[in-house]
């Protein structure tokens, strides 16, 4: 949980840094960059909130992840050894 908290705080800091830049910088390019930093802060918060309860990699039977990976195996040959869940490319 403490790792998650660290990421949450970092996300909040990024948001504030971006806000600071957006308000105080005069150059348009810097303002847009500052907006992007704010964005990153929000995304980091969203991701670390999601990371609080990590879904199992190879899910239990009947959950969404497992079905999805089973379909991929059927559709695309050579995506992995039988029984293993193919890792997405990105």
């Amino acid at each position: 949980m403490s790792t998650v908290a660290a990421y949450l705080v970092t996300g909040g800091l990024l948001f504030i840094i971006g806000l600071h830049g957006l308000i105080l910088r005069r150059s348009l390019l810097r303002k847009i960059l500052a907006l992007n930093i704010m964005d990153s802060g929000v995304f980091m918060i969203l991701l670390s909130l999601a990371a609080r309860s990590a879904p199992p990699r190879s899910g239990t039977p009947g959950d969404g992840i497992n079905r999805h990976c089973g379909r991929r195996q059927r559709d695309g040959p050579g995506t992995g050894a039988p029984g293993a869940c193919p890792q997405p490319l990105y």
Partner: protein
Amino acid sequence: MDLSLHPHWTVWCIVVPLLAGGLAVLVPRWGKTIGLIGAVLTLIVVGGATLQLLSHGPQRIEIGSWGAPLGIQLQLDGPALMMLWTTALVSLPITVYARDYFQTPQQQIRFWPLWLLLWSTMNMLYLSADLFNLYITLELLSFVSVVLVALAGPNAVRAAIRYLLMNLLGSLGFLLAVALMYGAYGMLDINMLAEQVEATPLTGLALALMSIGLLVKSALFPLHVWLPPAHAGAPAPVSAVLSALVVKASFYLLLLLWLTLYSPLVTRELTTLVGLLGIGAILWGSLQALRASRLKQLVAYSTVAQLGYIGLAITLIDVAAWQPVLTFIIAHACAKGAMFLAAGNFQRAAGHDRMALISAALRALPVSVFAFALAGISLIGLPPSGGFLAKWLLLSAALDSGRWLIALALVGSGLLTALYVFRVLERAVRPGAALKPVGRVSPLMEWSALGLGLLAILLGFAGMWITQILAEWPV
């Protein structure tokens, strides 16, 4: 006709303008026709949604039959229906106006898809019952509005960029608040959240971020700085839509969230703060409108001032909830739409909108002056206009709950409004020759402005209807 056979009128309110917009991209040559047909069809579909509400009561629709925690729900209730109607009634004359306003094919090609997309987005905002979906509609709304402002040409780019930056700031605040709410409660559906929300510090932070984000987008003083350049610089039909509808959409959302989701956290202090900002907006906006050197700037500052009334109305949500605010939103939407369309006509005829030289253009366009005057009557709040009805509702709510300062502000601000409205009308009756118009103002452009002005007055007679709808189908 058995309406249960057509259960998706609500969805069509979003899909029809969206499809029309897509079609306008594919067949740019027919943009005008597609725009008009799309507008009429949307009006019909909103009528269908009304019949559905009348016969079946409030609706929740699960898109693609995905249930609430995972899927996105649409919700049709009284306030949402009022906003749908406001948007449709104001948008139809603006569509007719825009048909003749844009002259170059390049502007036409860009305007129609964006305009229909904007309409669809607004309808989606009113109907969404999911926080993340609401964020998406807000984001779409700002992007489309910014591009529409920039249609005015190189002179408007500065205003458009400022508008973009401020609105993105508001959106990001909203998004962060959505993330916090999701982190705290693990769900995004408004109705399910409303049952769970507790007054914790985290929820308070989310409320603060969301409210500030929405107030930036609603341009409540002192967060209004982006509004006057953007609304004054945009093409006339776009100014009308932005001032009449787009700023109201975020106000509607603010009110919805405060009345449902955050009702345990919205204290008297908070609403009083918004009310004080509202008084600031009325004073500052009216003062700037009195000093404005350009007509469209005057009308834009008048919007800043009038949005202050919504701030005032929010202080009364504990006694009066939706009714005064929504009545005010509808009355102001019609009046401000008419005013911007008329201002656009004067600008087109004179080739500029400088107050010092505008009186010749005013004399040349009596119908538009009449539209402007009708809109002014509603803004000032003279009977029997819609503005009068809204102010009367606000005033009686303020007096019933013993809030004298608000009552005083309401009465005093009518006087300020009268001053800047007559600053324009006085120029219409100055002696002198009518000017030879520089640009062509078609009869349709004049009559659509007048139509909206008449609507602003006629709303004064629709009070019972509004009351009934809101009383029968609250959120």
